């Protein structure tokens, strides 16, 4: 017994001595790996933006979602990678005094509807079931590509939800709710199938922090506009449109995002500071314990933007083309680039004439009755006052 004890100790010290040089090598490797650890390993970005309320007085929720949509598109995520769900159509609502617009700022400064909005789920298609189907991927096979979340294990996904919520639930369209447990289960299903690399969940509702309490899957970071027991307030009403245009939290987040460009290095800690209590009245919250990296190493563009990794092509293959019958048709079909005169469009609309128009000379008409009567009145009053003898000074 004692012999084996000594033997094992001797062996461990010997092993320790042998491993020392390996240890130093491993240390430098660990440093390399640690540096790489700070970078995210994603190759593509997706965004799922959901507005869950309908009716005209919930204009601000649609404006919230469209503002985030606009920022995300501006920073580079293409429409094919954005799933936009809007529960009601504010731009074409009969009560909208400015049709085809959704404004996010007082005095109608910023139209977030724009020309190229692509709404994937609209109106009554925004249901809890459809939302969960999008997240988990359990979609009927007839669904078109634009309505699917085709993410893989190297996708960073941004999920933004806004609407009316309560302690542990979010209301969809006044008729159903999604609970925080169902949301957490949906994220777990996404994780099991590795449908995301990292996930950023932002929610702007009353008592929003309750929605991320139950998450248990790794690599999720969550932000909410208010804590449990607090209400998220709206920002400003617009007298012309007649409703509140945006919620406070999203308004300040949008202001923050307007300063981000695709190459900026701002990190998540700055996003956590957006909208302090003095501006927002509610206390925004965040949850990072499930996230592997430190938030100060996470760039905003990791989730809101989409920067592709590219590589210069240096390898070429020299092919010997098939000769023979194809050769003759090749020569016949091939036409080289021609240098032509610059093409012009025919003058369909004489724009120059319209813009630099001289005012048309109107024909002269003798003054009408009203002018004559007016002048007669003036002259009569003049001569009545000063006497007729002054007439000789006029003529």
């Amino acid at each position, binding site marked *: 017994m004692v012999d084996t004890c000594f033997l094992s100790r001797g062996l461990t010290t010997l092993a320790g001595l042998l491993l020392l040089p390996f240890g130093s090598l491993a240390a430098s490797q660990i440093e390399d790996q640690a540096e790489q650890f700070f970078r995210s390993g994603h190759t593509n970005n997706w965004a799922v933006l959901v507005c869950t309320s309908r009716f005209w007085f919930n204009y601000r929720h649609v404006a919230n979602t469209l503002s985030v949509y606009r920022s995300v598109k501006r920073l580079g995520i293409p429409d094919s990678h954005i799933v936009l769900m809007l529960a009601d159509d504010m731009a074409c609502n009969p009560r909208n005094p400015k049709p085809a617009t959704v404004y996010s700022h007082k005095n109608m400064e910023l139209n977030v509807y724009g020309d190229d909005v692509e709404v994937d789920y609209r109106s009554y298609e925004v249901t809890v079931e459809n939302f969960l189907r999008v997240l988990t991927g359990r979609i009927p096979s007839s669904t078109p590509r634009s309505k699917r979340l085709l993410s893989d294990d190297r996708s960073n996904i941004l999920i933004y939800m806004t609407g009316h919520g309560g302690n542990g639930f979010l209301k969809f369209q006044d008729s159903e709710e999604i609970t925080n447990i169902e949301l957490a289960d949906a994220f777990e299903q996404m994780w099991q199938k590795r449908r995301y690399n990292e996930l950023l969940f932002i929610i702007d509702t009353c008592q929003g922090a309750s929605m991320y309490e139950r998450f248990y899957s790794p690599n999720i970071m969550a932000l909410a506009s208010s804590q449990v027991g607090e209400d998220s307030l709206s920002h400003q009403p617009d007298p012309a449109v007649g409703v509140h245009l945006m919620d406070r939290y999203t308004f300040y987040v949008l202001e923050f995002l307007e300063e981000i460009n695709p190459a900026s290095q701002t990190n998540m800690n700055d996003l956590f500071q957006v909208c302090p209590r003095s501006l927002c009245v509610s206390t925004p919250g965040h949850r990072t314990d499930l996230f592997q990296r430190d938030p100060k190493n996470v760039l905003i563009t990791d989730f809101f933007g989409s920067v592709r990794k590219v590589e210069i092509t240096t390898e070429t293959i020299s092919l010997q083309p098939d000769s023979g019958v194809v050769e003759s048709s090749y020569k016949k079909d091939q036409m080289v*680039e021609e240098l032509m005169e610059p*093409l012009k469009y025919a003058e369909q609309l004489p724009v120059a004439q319209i813009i630099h128009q001289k005012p048309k000379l109107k024909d002269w008409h003798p003054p009408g009755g009203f002018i004559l009567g007016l002048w007669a009145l003036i002259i009569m009053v003049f001569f009545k006052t000063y006497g007729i003898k002054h007439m000789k000074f006029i003529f």
Partner: protein
Amino acid sequence: MAATGAAATDLEVVRGKRAALFFATVVIVLGLPLWWKTTETYRAPLPYSQISGLNSLKLRLMVPVTVVFTQESVPLDDQEKLPFTVVHEREIPLKYKLKIKCRFQKAYRRALDHEEAALSLGNIQEAEAMLAEPSEQAEGSLTVYVISERCSLLPQDMMSYIGPKRMAVVRGITHREAFNIIGRRIIQVVQAMSLTEDVLAAALADHLPEDKWSSDKRRPLKSSLGYEITFSLLNPDPKSHDVHWDIEGAVQRYVQPFLSALSAAGNFSVDSQILYYAVLGVNPRFDSASSSYYLAAHSLPHVINPVESRLGSSAASLYPVLNFLLYVPELAHSPLYIQDKDGAPVATNAFHSPRWGGIMVNGHTVQSPEPKVQGQTDWVGEVRLLFGIAQPQLPPKCLFFGPKSEGIMTWELDRLLWARSVENLATATTTLTSLAQLLGKISNIVIKDDVASEVYRAVAAVQKAAEELSSGHLASAFAASQEAVTSSERAFFDPSLLHLLYFPDDQKFAIYIPLFLPMAVPILLSLFKIFLETRKSWKKPEKTD
């Protein structure tokens, strides 16, 4: 009167007790199990044990190699020993839960007459042409011909030759240990032509934990049943360029042969489009030294996104799309070159993004137009990079010509199929394991019968693929692995697996309490009362007696 009244109430009390007991029995014995059975989520039985057994599957990838010895390649007494088989097995050191072993089964034999005749020709190409005719090699297998030391088929300083069609030639040696030495050379050549560690590491890149951040660049396309290849010509300045683009002819000449050579790996569909007034999102800079415009390397990542929104894709298919763009720069910005990070212009004038596609800039000025032939050969190079078909690592002193007209050698296709099979098996195993884990965690997911049958089919396909891989039938192994992936994905993503909504545990209380409480309270109270009275009546005889 009082006595009969008392007896009557006694009888009623007894009857009442019996009724309450009867109610309670019915509720507990019949009602509770009935309620439990009818409200449980339906789960068809699944082979959980087999699924967990898949995780410890040992994959053995066998490469059957036929080694043919010509007459003077080895000493005579060694020739007497032919034919026999030598097996060389090696474990691939990957940190993955499936253990993968690579097994080269070399069958040594003597050369047949026509092979001798072919190998005594003077030129290696002619010899190859003669040898390729008789037998078409099965996928995954290789043939190595051993020629004599002084044979002039290969140049004198070259020890081996790797051909484009699963054939290689190695020089023999007249030495006592001829077989061992030749065996090692053969292993070197065969490994270059088939499985190496990096091929499998790239295939399993998504499943290995450490390579998440390091293998950023070499990220081949994920295995899929098919791919959609789209060629787009971007012409931002149609006023000044009238570009004629013979894409149909180019597709027929270069793209189709390559894709038909790759057809074993999936279904490919090709389309093309021309986009006018499509600009790159980046402004090129002017370089006065060469009086041309250039795109710096660090601005390239920002090029793709503004263009991608215009590209579109086929709405019908869900296959991944590979976009290949040819950009004709505006007259004001011609000629346009791409600079790499050292500032030198790139020869190919092209760059690619892993798992997306590639962009090539037509850098020529309008005065010296050039046909788009060069574009297509660069395209083949880009596609090979995207698929992860790397240039092979050749053993020293090896003669190698490169692919012929198709752009890919048949054994490179084999390597792709090996990698894809392993990747498919890894994906299918992960999917099935995730499904099993998910069913354990979330208790209200329904498993219908057809989902269960898909799971059984997937498990059977994985096992079949592993068997076929270990017996060296690559084509059927690849087909089985594809079926495994399809079935497992179909089972996991079946729309009926959406977990029942509004059934979290705390809400179950809210649903059942109004139903059960009014019914349960009287029963429980009466049971309690009966129990108390019975206890009292037990104690009473003690006191009175």
